[in-house]
């Protein structure tokens, strides 16, 4: 029976939330890897039973887990992430050179057509690839070795490669985003990269429209229209209509254009979602009201979605990888908060209900739509 599987990574383990197509009753399983930070887990588009999870801790570093039964059981696979060659330095917070050091995997992006191929976005920023189901990992060094690399600097959460987008219509084209370096595009399967940040304006860097140095929080794409990209930047919600070559602002009537996640409706490429956050200093919703904002016009005109969401005394954040959509006929939208709630909407955001309310801090939310 058609259903959905919501994969939740938290600061103390992973959880799997499963439901049928009605999305009313949920079966909650977990925690998996209890006590460990699960920055991200995601299923293969080519095989929904193949899942990958990034498991890490400040004590014991990085572990990658793989499931071949939809998350019921897991096996640790390879965890050796070595930068290619001598990695050199990037900028530290104070502008001094700092050695490139692997800390963790923020994001796992399985290939669109091969369950054994998966990409990993790392902190310190680098892109790794495995072609054997995660057993071995090899860096695609062209990104980190871009001539601008020595000038990249970390955002508050670390210098993380947090977004990987694969373009199904143009094999070899992929996008990556790094805090706080910006967005990058490859047209040759990750061998070479170029910054795609023209049009971004960022305070807090010496040159506000520099080629790199922008704190991009998240990029989203609808697979049917891959040249159109949506971006939640540190401040500003942005759109590109030319594959990242240029960007323009679409913040419009948002109450604040600071935030972390951004996502696109599964069936309406011009319907997008953000969660406005008060400011870079106050990482909680304005006025203590948790509101998802939806634009049905590809930006600029936004409507608050509040039905079922707390409208007073809510001071949680929604992190960059903690929103996802399913592809059922009525698009489901899901997000998790730093307060441990996972909310779901089975009607494209018109109404919401908590699926779970007391998980650890939610780091990531992904959804699988099951046949």
């Amino acid at each position, binding site marked *: 029976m058609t259903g959905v599987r919501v994969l939740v990574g938290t600061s103390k383990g992973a959880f799997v939330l499963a439901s049928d197509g009605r999305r009313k009753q949920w079966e909650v399983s977990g925690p998996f890897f*209890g*006590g*460990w930070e699960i920055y991200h887990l995601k299923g293969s588009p080519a095989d929904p039973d193949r899942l990958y999870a990034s498991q890490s*801790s*400040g*004590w*014991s*570093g*990085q*572990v990658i887990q793989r499931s071949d039964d939809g998350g019921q059981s897991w096996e*640790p696979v390879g*965890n*050796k992430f*070595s930068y290619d060659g001598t990695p050199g330095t990037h900028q530290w917070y104070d502008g001094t050179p700092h050695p490139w050091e692997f800390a963790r995997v923020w994001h796992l992006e399985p290939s669109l057509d091969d369950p054994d191929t998966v990409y990993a976005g790392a902190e310190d920023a680098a892109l790794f690839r495995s072609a054997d189901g995660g057993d071995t990992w090899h860096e695609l060094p062209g990104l980190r070795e871009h001539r601008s690399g020595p000038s990249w600097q970390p955002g508050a959460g670390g210098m993380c490669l947090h977004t990987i987008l694969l373009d199904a219509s143009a094999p070899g084209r992929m996008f990556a985003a790094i805090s706080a370096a910006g967005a990058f595009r490859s047209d040759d399967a990750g061998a070479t990269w170029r910054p795609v940040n023209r049009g971004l304006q960022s305070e807090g860097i010496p040159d506000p429209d520099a080629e790199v140095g922008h704190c991009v929080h998240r990029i989203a794409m609808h697979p049917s229209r891959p040249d159109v990209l949506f971006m939640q930047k540190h401040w500003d919600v942005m759109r590109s209509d030319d594959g990242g070559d240029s960007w323009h602002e679409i913040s419009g009537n948002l109450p604040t254009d600071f935030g972390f996640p951004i996502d696109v409706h599964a069936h309406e490429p011009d319907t997008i979602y953000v969660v406005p956050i008060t400011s870079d200093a106050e990482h909680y919703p304005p006025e203590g009201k948790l509101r998802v904002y939806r634009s049905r016009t590809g930006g600029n005109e936004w409507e608050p979605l509040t039905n079922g969401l707390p409208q007073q005394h809510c001071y949680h954040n929604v992190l960059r990888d903690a929103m996802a959509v399913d592809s059922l006929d009525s698009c489901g939208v899901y997000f998790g908060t730093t307060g441990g709630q996972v909310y779901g909407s089975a009607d494209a955001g018109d109404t919401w209900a908590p699926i779970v309310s007391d998980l650890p801090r939610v780091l990531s939310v992904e959804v699988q739509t099951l046949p």
Partner: protein
Amino acid sequence: MIRVVLPSHLRTLARVDGEVELEVPGQVTQGAVLDALEVRYPVLRGTIRHQDGGRRRAFIRFFACEQDLSHEPPDAPLPEPVATGAEPYLIVGAMAGG
């Protein structure tokens, strides 16, 4: 037989209960014990020592016989009671909240 006590999160990861017992060929050093541990439980590679160069992870400590051996060189012999199995070799996660 060398007795090794892992921190709980690594026991879970390695799927072991209680102490681990290892045969360590040759001289019983920290490096030799950790090598033998990682051969027996490959999943522990990278979780105690960095995979590149074998440096101890910052928040992992090594104790035995009421001594802190964290900063001893990897080729230094472990105390005789550890080598004979009378005392365990303790791999400990530093107390650091969380």
